[in-house]
C-alpha cells in the first residue's frame, strides 16, 4: 500500500514534513505545492475541497485550527471518505500528542516546529502502515483477554496507586489487558494513540515520555512511564511531575509485579489468540473484530481456533489476507451502512448512505470466492466475522449471533463498563 502524507502550514504553505510509504518515488517540491495550492485556491473562493478519488487512489485535504494543513494520498481500498478523514485526524492528534496543541496552533518558529515534529514520524508511519491492529481503524483500542485479567487488575491498581496516579494500564503484546477505570475514561482516540505510541517506540526496559492528551489535556503535558515486566508485557503509568522514573522503577516495580510474574507468563501464552482458550468458537471462523462502541474497546483475533488450521476443511487464507479482508469489510460497512464511531471534533460534511437510509442496517454480509464475512450491529457491539467459504451462507447469521453471545457472556469484554 503506497501513501503520501504531507503536512504544511496553512497560511504560508511551508512544508513541515512529508512521509512517503510504499514503493513510490517521493513527491517533488512542485507537486507538494500543487497539492496544497489547489486547496488554498479553493479556500480563497469560499470552496472547501475535501477529497478526490481517482481510479486507484484517493486524496483528502484537511485544515486544522487554521494552522496546519494535512494532505493524504493513499491507495483506494473501497473505503468511504469517513475513513480517510479519520486517518487525517489520527495524524493530527499524534502531532498534538507529542508536540502539544499550543505549538501547533500558533507557529512562532517554523524551523523549530519542523524539528519538534520529527518526534512523531514513527507514530505517523505506524498509522499509514498495514498492521495487525484495528484500533486506529475503529477508534477503539485493541485489547487482550486472558483468564488472569482479574488478578492482574489488582496488581495494576496497587501499582498505579503507589505511583501516585490514577491512570495506568498493562499492555500485553501491545494490546491493553487491564487498565484503571480512569484510563478507560480517556477518549477512544487517546487510547488508540497511546497504545500506538508504545508500539512505535523501540523496545526499552523503561521509558519516560512527555505526552499531551489530545482531548483531555492538549496543552499541559503529562509523563507516560513505561516498564517492561517480561518480554511483551509492559506496565504504563500516566503521571504528573512526580514520581521520577527511577523512583518507580527501583521502589515500586518489584514490589507490585514480582508476585504476578506467573500470571503474566500464563497470560502471554494466550497470544496470538488474544482470547482465553476456554472460549470456544465455531470452527468456520477464521477471524473476527468485536467492537464495543461504548467504551472503545476492540477485540480482534486472526487465530480463533487452537487446532492447527491446516487440518481444517477450508482453503487457508494468509494472515495478511485475513487482516486485509476484515479491514476492507469494516471500511465497506462502517460509514456506509453502520454508523462510525466518531471522535469528538468531527467537522467534515459527509453524505454517507447510512444517513440517507430511513431504516437502520442491522446485519450485512459479503460472500467472496474463498471467504465469507458477516457483520452484526447491535446497540453497543459491532462484530465483524470472517468465515471460510465452506460455511453455508444461511448459517452465518446464527453463528455470528452465537459468537457474539459467547464473547460477551462472561463479561470479560465488558467488565469495566459499569464503573
Amino acid at each position, binding site marked *: 500500500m503506497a501513501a503520501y502524507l504531507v503536512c504544511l502550514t496553512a497560511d504560508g504553505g511551508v512544508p513541515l514534513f512529508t512521509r512517503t510509504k510504499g514503493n513510490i518515488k517521493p513527491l517533488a517540491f512542485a507537486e507538494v505545492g500543487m497539492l496544497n495550492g489547489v486547496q488554498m485556491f479553493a479556500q480563497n473562493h469560499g*470552496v472547501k475541497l475535501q477529497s*478526490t*478519488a481517482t481510479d*486507484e487512489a484517493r486524496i483528502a485535504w484537511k485544515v486544522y485550527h487554521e494552522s496546519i494543513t494535512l494532505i493524504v494520498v493513499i491507495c483506494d481500498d473501497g473505503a468511504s471518505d469517513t475513513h480517510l478523514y479519520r486517518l487525517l485526524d489520527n495524524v493530527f492528534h499524534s502531532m498534538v500528542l507529542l508536540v502539544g496543541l499550543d505549538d501547533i496552533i500558533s507557529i512562532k518558529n517554523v524551523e523549530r516546529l519542523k524539528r519538534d515534529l520529527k518526534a512523531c514520524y514513527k507514530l505517523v508511519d505506524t498509522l499509514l502502515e498495514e498492521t495487525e491492529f484495528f484500533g486506529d481503524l475503529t477508534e477503539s483500542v485493541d485489547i487482550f483477554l486472558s483468564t488472569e485479567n482479574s488478578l492482574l487488575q489488582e496488581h495494576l491498581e496497587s501499582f498505579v496507586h503507589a505511583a501516585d496516579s490514577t491512570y495506568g494500564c498493562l499492555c500485553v503484546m501491545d494490546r491493553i489487558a487491564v487498565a484503571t477505570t480512569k484510563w478507560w475514561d480517556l477518549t477512544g482516540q487517546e487510547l488508540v494513540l497511546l497504545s500506538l505510541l508504545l508500539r512505535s517506540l523501540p523496545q526499552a526496559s523503561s521509558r519516560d515520555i512527555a505526552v499531551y492528551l489530545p482531548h483531555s489535556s492538549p496543552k499541559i503535558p503529562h509523563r507516560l512511564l513505561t516498564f517492561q515486566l517480561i518480554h511483551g508485557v509492559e506496565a504504563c503509568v500516566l503521571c504528573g511531575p512526580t514520581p521520577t522514573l527511577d523512583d518507580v522503577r527501583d521502589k515500586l516495580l518489584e514490589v507490585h509485579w514480582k508476585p504476578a510474574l506467573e500470571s503474566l507468563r500464563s497470560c502471554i501464552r494466550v497470544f496470538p489468540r488474544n482470547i482465553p482458550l476456554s472460549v470456544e468458537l465455531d470452527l468456520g471462523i477464521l477471524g473476527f473484530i468485536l467492537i464495543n462502541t461504548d467504551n472503545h474497546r476492540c477485540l480482534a483475533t486472526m487465530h480463533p481456533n487452537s487446532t492447527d488450521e491446516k487440518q481444517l476443511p477450508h482453503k487457508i487464507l494468509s494472515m495478511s489476507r485475513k487482516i486485509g479482508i476484515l479491514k476492507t469489510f469494516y471500511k465497506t460497512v462502517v460509514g456506509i451502512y453502520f454508523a462510525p464511531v466518531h471522535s469528538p471534533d468531527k467537522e467534515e*460534511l459527509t453524505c454517507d448512505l447510512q444517513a440517507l437510509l430511513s431504516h437502520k442496517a442491522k446485519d450485512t454480509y459479503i460472500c467472496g470466492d474463498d471467504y465469507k464475512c458477516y457483520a452484526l450491529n447491535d446497540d453497543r457491539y459491532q462484530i465483524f466475522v470472517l468465515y471460510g467459504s465452506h460455511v453455508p451462507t444461511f448459517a452465518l447469521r446464527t453463528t455470528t449471533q452465537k459468537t457474539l453471545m459467547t464473547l460477551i457472556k462472561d463479561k470479560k469484554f465488558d467488565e469495566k463498563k459499569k464503573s
Partner: protein
Amino acid sequence: MTHQLQGHRYYNDYSSSDSETDYPPRPRIIVGQGDADRRWETESGDGLEPAWAGAVQDKGDVFYVEQGEEPPSPKKVAVDNEFNSEHTLNGKGKEKRGLHKLKKIIKGRKGDNGKLHVSLSEPDLKTSQYNLVYGTPDKNTDNGDLREVSLFLSPDINHTVAQSRLEALFGIIPGRFSIKSRYSPLSSPARKNDFKNGDKIMVRGLLPTGVAMKSGQISIGDCVVAINGIPLNYDNFNRVLSAIVGPLEVKLHIEKQVLPKDRFILQPRRILPNGSLVKLVSGEKLKEITISLQKTPHVVMYLSIAGNTLETTNENKEVLYQYPENEASRKLSDVQGMFLTVSDMMETITGTRVICSSIVINKQLLNVGYYKNGTEVLVLAVPANKVSVSQLNHIVSDVVRLLILLYGSLDNTFLPSIYQAKLDHLFSLLFQRLLLGDNVHTPLLDSNTYAFLDTLPGVRWLDLPDDVKVTIDSSLSELEATDFADMSDDHYDDRRPYVILGTCLFHRGYLLANHLPKEDFIDMLLYCRYHSLLTLASEARIGQLVIWKEVYPTRRRKRKSGTENEGYTEPHGRDFLLIVGMKNGLLCMLLEAGGCAAKAVGNPSPDPFYVDQAKATLLHLESISIPASCEDRLSNIPVPAISCADWFFSSKSNTIESSTPPPIPGSPMLSRLHTPQQKGSSKKQQLFPPDSGGKPKKRSGSPSRNVARSSAYEVDSDEGSDASAYSPVNSQQSTPVLRRRNDDNRRESVGSAGSGGSSSGSSLFKSTKKHRIIPDPFNMAILRKGLNEAEANELYTATKLTSGADNTLFHYVNLEIGQGVVVCPTHKDVTLLGGTVHPQLIKNFHKCCLGIRQVFHQSRKPRLKSKKTQQTNRFDRNYCFKVVKEHGILMQCTPENWNEQKKSPPTMNYWVVGRIYGKPFPREVYVCFHESAPQNTIELAFKLSFGAGL
C-alpha cells in the same frame, strides 16, 4: 399520409396554402441538397408537410414533441362521443381498427378536411376540432368582464404582408362581431355606446406562435376592445395597429364573451396539465427549470487546460461550455481552475485518472465528477444529498458515452458552439431529473427513488405473453425488412436511402421488444433516458414525437480499436437514429446509410417515408391492441407476487408456536404451500385462454426470440409447481385478477390449507384477524368480481414465489447484462401495494442496491496494466475482497406514527441481497425479502431470474 394525425392547430379557419410563406414561425422545410424530390415524393399530391417538418434543424436533426390528449374524463365523455370519428382522425381514437381501414378513413376524410370552417353563428359541430364546452358564464363575465392584457410585441418588418395587422402582431385571427345581429354581450349600456362606430373584433382564432396564444389570457370568442386605451373596431384596427413599428409593450383591453347558457362556444383545447411535461422534454420550458434550480448549486462545464494556471482563471477562454450560467453555478465556475488543476495533478501524482471530488460550498456538500479527455476535462457538480458518488460516476460515464454517440467525440461536442442549445437542453433535462425529482414543478418525472435503475445498463422490461411478443416481434421484423412495394429497389430503380439496422419498442417506458444488438441498444437507451423520453412516454400521452439525429454508435468505435470478428468489416456508413412516438409508445430505429443503402449526402433530414412507416407500425400495433394488452399486463397482478412490508408488523403477543418454516404472526397472508398443487396444465390453458386479438399477422418473428419461457420455470425443487405456472398468468386477462382474497376466500383457503396439512393455519388466521395493525388493502380496494374462488386461489398460489407461511418477497430487480434488460415490479405494482413503510423500504432497497452494486464492480474492476515507463509513481488499488459474489444487508424498520407510548414499536427486519453471476450469462439479481424467508427459497428466487430472457 399520416401527417394529418397531428391536429395541432389552434385556430379554426386557417387556409393552408395562400399565406403560408408569410408567417415566419410556420413550419418551414430546410431541404437538404439534391435529393429533395425523392424525399418528398410520398407527400406529393396533397402538398402538405408533416408537422415535424418545422422542427428540422440545420444539421437535419429533428426533435419534435407534440402534446397529446388525455383520455377523456368521465364528464366530457358525452360530448366526446359525438366526435369519435374526429378523434380517430386525430390519431387519438380508442377504436381498434385495422391499419388499412384507418388509412382509408383518413383518405376519405382528407378532401373535406382541408379547411375547417367554424363560425360562431353556425357552429359546424361535425368538423370542429374543438371540444365543446358549455359556455357557463362565470361570475366576472356578468359584470361585463373587461380585462387588460399586457403583451410584448416585437414586430418583424418582413411580415407586414399578413392579412391583418392583428394576425401579424398578436397572432389573433380577427373576426367581425356584428353587434346588431347579436344579443348584446355588454351589460353596461354606456360601454356599448363607446363602440358603436364599427363592428367589434372578435377573436376568431389564435396562431399557435402568436403572443396572444402564448400569454394564455386571450381565448377564442373574446372581443378586442381597445389597445393602450385607443378603441379598436373591425374597421379601424389595421390603421391603428400600423402605427406600431418597434418592439413595445401594449395593453389590450379584452372583453370576455358572455354567452347565454344554452349556447355553446367553441374553445380551443385547454393546455393539459401534463403538457408541461411535454414542454419540459422538448426544451420549451428551459428557463423555468433554470429558475427553479437557482438555489441549488450545480454545473456542467467543459474546461480546457491549454495555458491554464490558477492565476488566469478569470478569463473565460478555458470554459468551452457551461450550463447553467447563473447564480447557482457562479461559485462553481469561479473555481474552474481548481477542477482543472485537480484533474491534471491527479494524473501526475497518482498516475491514474481522476474520477470525482467532494467539495463544500456554503455548508453544502457537492460531488464533482470528472471526465478527462486529453487536455480537456468535463466537470459535473451536483449536491451530494441528491446524487451519491457512485451514482454520479455512472452518470458521468453515461453522459460521455451519450455525447460521443451524438457528436462523434467530446471535442466535437463542445468545441464548436453550434450545439450549445442542444446541450443546454440535454443538461437541463439531466439536472431536472437529478435535482428536481420530487419537486412540485415536475411531479411526473421520476424521482430519485429509482436512481438505481437509471444507473443500470438496462431498461425495465415488460414481460408479455408469448403470443403478444410474437406479434410485436413480427411487426418489427416486418418494418425492419423495409419490404415495401413502392420502396423496393426495382420500383424506382433507385437505391433505398437507409437500411434499418434494428428497432426497439417501448411502452410507457417499458421495453417490449428489442431487435438491436446490445451496444446499439444501450446507446439508444441512453439517448431515450437522458432525453427523458421514457418518462415522457410513461407519464404523458404523446401526440406525436419524431426525433432524428445522426449518431456515432459506440459499436463502431469499439470495432475500430478491437480486432474481433476477423474477416468482417463494418461498412463505412453513417448511422441515424429515428424515434417515433405516439401516445405511450416509442419506436426507436437505427438506420444506416451507406453500406448497401445509398450514401447519405450532406445532412439529410428525416425521410418522411420512414417516419410514416414507423408511425404505421405503431398504428398497426395499436390496431391489434398491443398497447391495450400492455396496459392489461401493467394493471394485472404482479408476478411473482410481492408483499407489502406493512403487513408484516405484528405485536409479539400473537406469536404462535409452529414448525418450520415459521409463519409470520399477524400476517394476512396464508400458506397454500401444502395444498395439492398438481393441477394439470390443461386446466391452466383453460384458465388463461390464448389471446385471440393478437394473432401474428403475417410472418412470424425469428423463432429464437420467442422461446417459451415457461420451460425455464420448471425448477426441480419443492416449489417448482408454484413457479412453473408462472408465465401464463400474464396473458391478456379481460377480467382483472384478484390479488388477494377477501375474507370469504381466505376462510375457504384456510379450510383447504387445513386439509393439506398446515394445521396451524386456522388459529393463525383467527389471531391475526383480531390483532392486525394495518389493514390489508386488498380486502376492500382490489376486490374484483367475476372470478370464482377456485381460480383465484390457484392464481394466488401460482404466483407466489417464496415458500413458507407467507409470501416474504418484497421487491426484486433482475439485470440481464447481456440483454440490457431489467425485470422488476412495475411502479403500479408498488403503488398498488400501498402502505406507509413499504415505499420507504423500496427507497432503501434501491439505495442499498446502489451500494451493493458498487462493491461488486469495485471487486471486479480490471487492474489497469501498469505502464512500464512510470512504474515508480503508481498507486495500486488495494482491494482485499478480490471477487465478491454476494452481498446482503439486513435492515430494521418500525411502523411510522407509533402511538402507544408504553410499548416499544414492533420491528420488522428485511434483507436486501444482491448477487452477481458471471458466466455464461452475466446478470445481477437484487432481492428484498423478509428475514423469515427460508434459505432454499432465497436460492430459488435467485435462480428463477424472474422471467427475464427475451
